[in-house]
């Protein structure tokens, strides 16, 4: 929302304030002013002048010699290239020595052989706009020889108010509302513009009102129509053009400009119909029918839906209510009579239509704020007043049409004065609170038992103010909230710990990064069809974004793999070997409608080696498996089992990864529940993501550990009281027999006598049959009750050997216990 400081100054006494101070006052009382931009500065020395004569330039066809009277009694002749210069015009004259806002300093010089002492200026040269088609022409009534700034009410300053800060304030979408705020803030009266001639004229209008029928009273709370005849339309006077231009509103013609001017003044959008385009002689406000269309002023034919609101001449749509007029009914150069509409439409309806058609106009963005229906008549009369002022022949021909089925009820709010002090923590007297409310237009109804009851002014009553807390805010902001003393809240002391989930996640992050050396990154929660396809997830149902910002981000991720592989591709050129992890949530679609999906928090890990070094074989994959074991050790995962991955998913609703190397993939389970998947990236997937060498992906559903209850590890075991014995045993098994299975076989051979079984070597190659491998374990034997006897030790060794051979595996070597 833009504000003209000059205009505000016309409505209340701001004489002591600079525009910057005014902006600061508004920022701390009302709404943030984001900037103050000077407008129409640098016009010093430019004066108004009258064109006395125009004659051809002797040397140039397109230049002319113009004689200008600037009131000093000695007309000057200057060279001018503008096509529109004509005798009698009042123009803007920059004499020799003046520096224009565009930086040009005028000097006496010859142009094609003719001396020129000054310049007749165009809009752009004065920094007032972009027009360079011709010179800027002022109203003929403008005095000659006065500073241009005085003629145009310049310089001005434009205050740019944050729109989000006034979303809730329908009254602040015009200058009057802000003038009221400033008046209250500086303690001066508000001088809102009036419409005395129009009001008097309406009262004596001879003809009955133009017929208006509202068919949808919920959508149109009030419709005011004023008919003006004998108008002459044309370009607006310069001051009006300047004022609109300063606010960023393009000047069209007088009638359109006046509707806009009143909108910027009152905050009430208006629409002027050419009365000649309404032969039916009746306005109907109705909902659109399915299939109906309207061609709006911007030349676009728009399909309507029930719910859109139309202004019709009888049945013929002439405007899309609250949004934009129809192309055939607007005012134009030939207009001599207008029907001015000043209406109050339902905020939601206008907002829905404007959003659906992507047609956000100055009008719709005001209506959607829930405008004050009481303001509709004021605005209509202000328009009439301005037309009467600027069109000498204009008259109000008919009485005002004012259909207002259910006048807005007075809204009363009662507040204990104590609430102000209690909520703000500020010492504000009852009297100060009452005065602040009065200054903002709240009418005192009652004051008793330390309570105040006020009538909310209509311009605040549509949505904004309805509760005692709303009044607290009014009082507080008039104080600028200054003097609030910080007071610590009192609460009984109690220890606060992060939740178990939060603690687990904190420990996971610390372990991965600080212990295991994975750099933490973050990624968008999205990926697109291309990456889904590369992972073989092209056909898997994802939660989709309805309006993606880019094609590569159109769905919620079902795996962290895409983000991690993207990350490797990005870094591998500079960092040949690296490890990265990220925390995210995977969001599979909910199984049923009307429920929220079950989000799976995961840690995704990736390790890569661009060289793909394979000594020892599977080095990188084993490294990640080791990291995961270490991680789960730190997280206290109970009873960890690691086995070949066989396509299973990390959690319900997620797809099983199809991007793992078929011989290097693993599933981690704790107490039977999947908690992590890990695998080397399959060559085809790696190629699809542009990877060189090898990369290992892992994904950890750490929250599953919580579901298992204990996260405190396998539990404490006292150190052995008696000496233990260790012995090593090597066993030859079919190649893909898991070491975990062999270790379990050993452990189960004599559960009470074997404390630990640890793999220490794997061998494949010469000396053992093809298709087999040798696994060597260290077994820790003990007796909980006594020093292990040689006999007992030997018995355990035989039991282990027997158990292994019973599985059909050959025991290669079994050292004697030591």
């Amino acid at each position, binding site marked *: 929302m833009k504000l003209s400081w000059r205009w505000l100054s016309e409505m209340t006494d701001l004489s002591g304030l600079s525009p910057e101070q005014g902006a600061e006052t508004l920022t701390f009382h009302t709404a943030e002013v984001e900037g103050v931009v000077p407008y129409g500065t640098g016009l010093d020395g430019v004066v108004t002048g009258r064109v006395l004569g125009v004659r051809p330039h002797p040397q140039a066809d397109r230049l002319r010699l113009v004689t200008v009277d600037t009131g000093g009694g000695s007309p000057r002749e200057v060279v001018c290239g503008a096509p529109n210069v004509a005798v009698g015009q009042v123009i803007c004259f920059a004499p020799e020595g003046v520096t224009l806002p565009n930086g040009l300093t005028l000097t006496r010089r010859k142009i094609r052989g003719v001396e020129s002492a000054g310049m007749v200026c165009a809009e752009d040269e004065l920094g007032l706009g972009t027009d360079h088609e011709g010179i800027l022409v002022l109203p003929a009534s403008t005095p000659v020889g006065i500073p241009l700034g005085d003629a145009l009410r310049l310089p001005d300053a434009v205050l740019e108010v944050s729109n989000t800060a006034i*979303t809730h304030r329908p009254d602040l979408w015009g200058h009057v509302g802000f003038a009221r705020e400033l008046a209250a803030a500086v303690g001066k009266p508000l001088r809102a513009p009036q419409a005395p001639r129009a009001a008097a004229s309406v009262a004596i209008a001879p003809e009955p009102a133009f017929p208006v029928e509202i068919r949808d009273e919920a959508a149109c709370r009030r419709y005011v129509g004023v008919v003006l005849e004998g108008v002459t339309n044309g370009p607006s006077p310069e001051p009006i053009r300047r004022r609109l231009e300063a606010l960023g509103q393009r000047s069209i013609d007088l009638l359109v400009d006046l509707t806009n001017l009143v909108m910027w003044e009152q905050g009430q959008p208006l629409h002027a119909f050419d009365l000649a385009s309404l032969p039916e002689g009746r306005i109907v406000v109705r909902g659109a029918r399915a299939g109906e269309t309207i061609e709006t002023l911007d030349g676009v034919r728009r399909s309507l839906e029930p719910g859109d609101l139309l202004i019709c001449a009888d049945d013929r749509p002439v405007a899309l209510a609250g949004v934009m007029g129809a192309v055939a009914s607007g005012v134009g150069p030939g207009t001599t009579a207008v029907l001015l509409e000043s209406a109050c439409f339902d905020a939601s309806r206008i907002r829905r239509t404007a959003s659906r058609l992507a047609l956000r106009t100055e009008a719709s963005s005001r209506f959607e704020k829930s405008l004050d229906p009481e303001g509709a008549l004021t605005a209509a009369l202000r328009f009439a007043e301005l037309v009467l002022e600027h069109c000498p022949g204009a008259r109000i021909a008919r009485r005002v049409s004012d259909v207002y089925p259910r006048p807005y009820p007075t809204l009363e709010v009662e507040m204990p004065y104590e609430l102000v002090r209690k909520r703000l923590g500020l010492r504000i007297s009852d009297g100060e609170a009452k005065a602040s409310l009065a200054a903002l237009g709240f009418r005192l109804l009652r004051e008793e038992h330390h309570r105040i009851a006020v009538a909310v002014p209509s311009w605040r009553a549509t949505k904004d103010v309805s509760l005692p807390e709303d009044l607290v805010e009014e009082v507080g902001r008039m104080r600028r909230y200054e003097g*609030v003393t*910080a007071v610590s809240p009192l609460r009984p002391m109690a220890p606060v710990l992060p939740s178990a989930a939060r603690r687990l996640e904190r420990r996971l992050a610390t372990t991965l990064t600080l212990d295991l050396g994975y750099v933490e990154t*973050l990624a968008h929660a999205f990926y697109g069809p291309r990456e889904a396809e590369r992972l073989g997830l092209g056909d898997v149902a994802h939660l989709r974004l309805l309006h993606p910002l880019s094609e590569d981000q159109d769905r919620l991720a079902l795996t962290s793999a895409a983000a991690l592989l993207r990350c490797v591709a990005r870094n591998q050129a500079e960092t040949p070997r690296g490890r990265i992890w990220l925390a995210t949530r995977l969001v599979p679609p909910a199984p049923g409608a009307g429920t929220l999906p079950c989000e799976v928090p995961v840690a995704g890990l990736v390790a890569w080696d661009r060289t793909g070094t394979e000594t020892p074989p599977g080095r990188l994959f084993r490294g990640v498996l080791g990291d995961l074991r270490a991680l789960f050790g730190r997280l206290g995962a109970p009873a960890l089992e690691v086995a070949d991955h066989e396509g299973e998913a990390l959690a319900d609703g997620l797809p099983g990864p199809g991007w793992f190397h078929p011989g290097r993939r693993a599933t981690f389970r704790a107490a039977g529940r999947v908690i992590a998947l890990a695998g080397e990236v399959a060559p085809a997937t790696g190629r699809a993501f542009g990877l060189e060498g090898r990369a290992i992906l892992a994904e950890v559903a750490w929250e599953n550990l919580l579901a298992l209850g204990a996260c405190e590890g396998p539990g404490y075991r006292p150190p052995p009281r008696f000496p233990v014995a260790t012995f090593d045993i090597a066993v030859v098994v079919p190649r893909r027999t898991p070491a975990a299975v062999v270790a379990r076989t050993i452990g189960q051979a004599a559960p009470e006598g074997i404390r630990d079984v640890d793999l220490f070597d794997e061998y494949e190659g010469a000396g053992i049959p093809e298709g087999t491998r040798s696994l060597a374990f260290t077994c820790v034997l003990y007796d909980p009750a006594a020093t292990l006897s040689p006999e007992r030790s030997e018995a355990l060794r035989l039991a282990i050997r027997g158990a292994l051979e019973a599985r059909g595996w050959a025991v290669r070597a079994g050292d004697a216990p030591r």
Partner: protein
Amino acid sequence: MSTPLRDEIAALESAALAAVRAAGAPEAVEAALAQHLGRKARLPEILRSIATLPPDQRGEVGRGANRAKVAVEAAARERLEALRAAGEAALADREWVDASAPWPLAPRATVHPIRQMVRELEDVFLGMGFHLLDGPWVEDDRHNFGALNIPPDHPARDMHDTFWLSDGNLLRTHTSPVQIRAMEAGAPPIRAVAIGRVFRHEEVDATHENNFHQVEGFLVDRDVSVAHMVSVLRDVLRAVLGPEVEVRLRPSYFPFVEPGFEMDAKFRGRWLELLGCGLVHPRVLAAGGVAPGTWSGFAFGMGVDRLAMLRHGIEDVRHFLAGDLRFLRQFQGGVES
């Protein structure tokens, strides 16, 4: 005593002393000792053979041989000490390490700057007695908007460019839905913060991301005032930005608070817009099942990314999600384990 034996002992002693004193390294001293006093050497042999000597010679030979052995051992100790002293005197040059050279060559892994900021905020709030809560990324309209006093078609929805989802839900545009979830989950008094990811349907540029992080805090209790809010927020900002930080309030509009404010903080001489805050709107309390007549509260929200950018002087918010090691590796600061 026979002269030959005495002379031999003297010769052995001077040879051993010479060898020990000539040794240029501790190992050479040890070798000389082994050669002259070791099991197979002559001097120990003489000592062992004393019993075979005539009785009148035993005493003198024994004393002489022992004296020679002790003298050699003393000389060896002396030599070792001298060598060690000389060696240590040369340490500066011999064992010099270039402290300016980075080692290990690969830097330590780093915690993401956002997590560092989150952890810091969590610890500040935990210390002030706030519970840490979290809510879902995918939210329904009621929790993200309706219950927060943003009904359908409310213009305030424009402030929240929303990612709507194919299932009719949405990605939360702020962490405020956690207020509602907290009130639904338990009766007041409540002191809680929710820190997490939020989503906005916005074109991404140097100051806007479509995935970013917010910290939401709220306190619901009896007779909560703006003064309490200022106290808590000022202390939080001082804990995070420094003890000299000053704060001020400006009126602002957020539908879920009444009155609503922006809080500015003066940081390094500049006033920064840092957070939105206010007293919880009575309608929001009611939507959470909390009686507005009995309870009141304050709530606030702040951008975590923004704080991290301020902290480190990061110029472009897009770095956070880019996964670029050259960015990530710079944040060697960390979190307490």
